């Protein structure tokens, strides 16, 4: 081969056309030009400054050469694959706190939690302009004889600019991986055995202490059935104030909340405790946060409060479990009027189809309906059906999934013998995972499904059932011998307040199914 440079017109065209799908936006700093000469790509020189504008450092400093290399070193990585390092939002000495009590269902932040944190971040950063008089008024409800508030308002008046820190309160263990990008400046984690169960009174008492010590400007709860709505109202009742519930918009000092069970909008002044709806604000996405564990000064006397700011431990993992004195433990036990006896097993077919978490749905392709019902009982799935199956009389009308039936929200949806009419696909649009069992590989359901099994549905179901019964073989024999003991275990061990694994407690129905 000769050393002659050969043009690749197509590659050149792609390189010129920034909208071409194969275009690599930040190519090599030095590239072959159309004539074969090496050309410097001036567009890649420089860097994007903090305000989003391109900056070229011509000072001749050590970095000024690196800024060329920085781009060229990235090579042909496309922009989408780059790991973007977000700027760090630091709050060293917060003037006030915004407390967010997240649901933290199974240790994770839901989108509702993230929205609430986003709103808290907005309140913490955008409220610099509000007059101090209003602030003092807002804080009045939390004063309760604590002098700390006075000190801080004084500091705010002198500084003029006030920044707040978002304090997130987690109960039970945290399994969320990246807490730093969710907008948490300070973290309080109540851990311990008692928090694995349903103990709203204990949680409320802890929050009460925390609020009295931090004296936060606002306390935000997600207004959700996962506990936020309950906890917020408990806390408000204990603090002898009231809440603004169903808040969906916050403009400076005004909030808009839904009243009359969703029929009216109430525009009112901002309150201390707010139960906010989903999508009340955008979640934090532009900044990283420190997410420092807040040393909870629970053992300290209240007059030490103004010193809280120096008590943060840098980059420490969730703070250790609060050590209680025996008196406090006795007190906390006697205060508990509610005892969690665990989740009870629910017949899957009693669950409303719209909120069922696991649905086995049958359609025209099913020949053996007895096997289908048997499979649903063994898997512990709620039964659904397509319109054809309902019209043919195999299933009742209230089991119909689709535009004319029920719109389902299941986590896992198994469609057996359903080809996937558009009305049916609308009905399952919100399902997370769809499994198709069908004899036709080209049907619409297979295109939608995350996993498709092509073949005779009867055989596939039979194979699945043998697998499941094999897998459950051991616990099943236990059940037969010691059903009572198992029940006791259940009452102590299942403490899932979330309903994330709704079909944990189905062995009884499995037994029924086996007898059928």
């Amino acid at each position, binding site marked *: 081969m000769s050393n002659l440079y050969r043009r690749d017109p197509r590659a050149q065209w792609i390189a010129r056309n920034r909208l071409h799908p194969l275009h690599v936006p930040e190519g090599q700093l030095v590239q072959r030009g159309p004539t074969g000469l090496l050309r410097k790509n001036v567009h890649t020189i420089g860097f994007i400054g903090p305000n989003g504008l391109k900056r070229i450092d011509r000072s001749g400093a050590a970095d000024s050469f690196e800024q060329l290399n920085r781009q060229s070193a990235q090579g042909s990585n496309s922009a989408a694959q780059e790991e973007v390092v977000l700027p760090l939002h630091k709050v060293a000495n917060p003037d006030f706190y915004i407390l967010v009590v997240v649901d933290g269902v199974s240790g994770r932040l839901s989108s509702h939690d993230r929205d609430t944190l986003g709103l808290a971040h907005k309140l913490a950063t955008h409220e610099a302009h509000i007059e101090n008089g209003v602030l003092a008024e807002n804080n009045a409800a939390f004063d309760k004889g604590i002098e700390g508030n006075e000190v801080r308002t004084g500091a705010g008046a002198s500084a003029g600019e006030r920044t707040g820190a978002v304090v997130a309160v987690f109960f039970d263990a945290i399994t969320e991986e990246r807490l730093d990008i969710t907008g948490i400046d300070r973290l309080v984690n109540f851990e311990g055995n008692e928090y694995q169960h349903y103990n709203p009174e204990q949680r409320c008492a802890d929050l009460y202490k925390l609020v009295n010590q931090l004296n936060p400007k606002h306390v935000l709860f997600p207004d959700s059935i996962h506990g936020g709505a309950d906890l917020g109202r408990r806390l408000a009742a204990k603090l002898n104030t009231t809440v603004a*519930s169903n808040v969906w918009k916050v403009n400076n000092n005004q909030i808009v909340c*839904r009243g009359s069970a969703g029929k009216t909008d109430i*525009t*009112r002044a901002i309150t201390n405790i707010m139960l906010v709806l989903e999508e009340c604000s955008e979640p934090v996405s532009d900044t990283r946060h420190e997410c420092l564990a807040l040393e909870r000064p629970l053992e300290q006397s209240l007059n030490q409060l103004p010193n809280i700011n120096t008590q943060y431990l840098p980059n420490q993992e969730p703070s250790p479990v609060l050590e209680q004195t025996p008196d406090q433990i006795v007190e906390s036990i006697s205060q508990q009027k509610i005892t969690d006896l665990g989740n009870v097993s629910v017949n899957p077919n009693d669950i409303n189809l719209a909120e069922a978490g696991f649905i086995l749905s049958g359609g025209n392709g099913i020949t053996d309906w007895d096997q289908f019902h048997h499979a649903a009982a063994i898997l512990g799935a709620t039964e659904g059906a397509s319109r054809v199956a309902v019209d043919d009389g195999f299933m009742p009308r209230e089991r119909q999934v689709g535009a004319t039936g029920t719109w389902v929200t299941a986590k896992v949806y198994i469609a057996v013998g359903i080809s996937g009419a558009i009305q049916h696909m609308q009905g399952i649009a919100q399902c997370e995972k769809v499994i198709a069992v069908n004899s036709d590989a080209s049907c619409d359901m297979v295109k939608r499904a995350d996993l498709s099994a092509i073949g005779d549905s009867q055989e*596939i179901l039979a194979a699945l059932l043998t697998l499941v019964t094999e897998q459950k073989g051991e616990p099943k024999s236990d059940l037969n011998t010691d059903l009572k003991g198992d029940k006791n275990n259940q009452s102590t061990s299942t403490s899932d307040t979330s309903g994330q694994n709704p079909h944990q407690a189905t062995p009884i129905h499995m037994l029924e199914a086996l007898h059928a």
Partner: protein
Amino acid sequence: MRKQTHSASTEINKNTEGLHNNVVKMVNTASKESVNVTVLVSVGEHPLSKRPRRAEQDARAIEIGLNLPGTQLHVMHAGAADNVQTNTVLKDYLGMGLPEIQVLNIPQEADNLTALTSNFTDSNPDIILTGIRAENGESSGMLPYVLSEQLGMALVPSITEILSVDKKAGFAELLQALPRGQRRKVRVKLPFVATVDMAAKAPRQSAFGAAMRGKITVVDAIATATTNNANTEWKITPAQPRPKRLKVVKAKTAADRFKAATAKAQGGAGKVIYNNQEAADAILKMLTDEKVL
């Protein structure tokens, strides 16, 4: 099972006797009588026609009360008496088979909480059932919480069923509604306040004859003016539809924006398996991964 809970609960009772002397005493003195259940009902509002109606959760609370054997059921409404609209709704409640509804006569602008609290400290109910939120007004859902705080009673939110009430031991077992149709069993000390979830058993129909036979008794209550005048500054408008959240594309360059706008849904094609046994394995794996089995 039954016996075990008995013994366990009495033990706890002994342990906490010193601390909760007054509660235990109250339970003991009243133990010979039947369980006193009070249901607080409100005037509901139809979501579309805005007509007054039975509040759905309150009607469910009455249904729970009617289905509890061996109890004294009292139904109470706090509000302005001799109001035509209120009386029609109260008749609807009476039509469920109630002999009487008490109306605590409280003027519209007065605070009904103090009246309710003083009434309950006199009557000492074991169980107070309410709905979760009112169907009109602010509907903040605070009333049961404030009541429980002021009366020193436990509060159990969103229950669907009362499984058992053991007045001697001072405990009741309840079923609570959880998301995804799940239920949690809780044991709670008597007396308690509970809010009733929509997942509870649907209320029975209201019968005209029963409604005509039932009595509405007006009880005079001490009316105190509301302490917070903040409500006067509220602006109440019909609910606006909430704007849908837009998918914001944070792209620095035109190419990124173009790609985001024209990109097709990724990962449309799932895994397709033709072998029956492999398919069953894969399905089982997915089910266990999703923790539904």
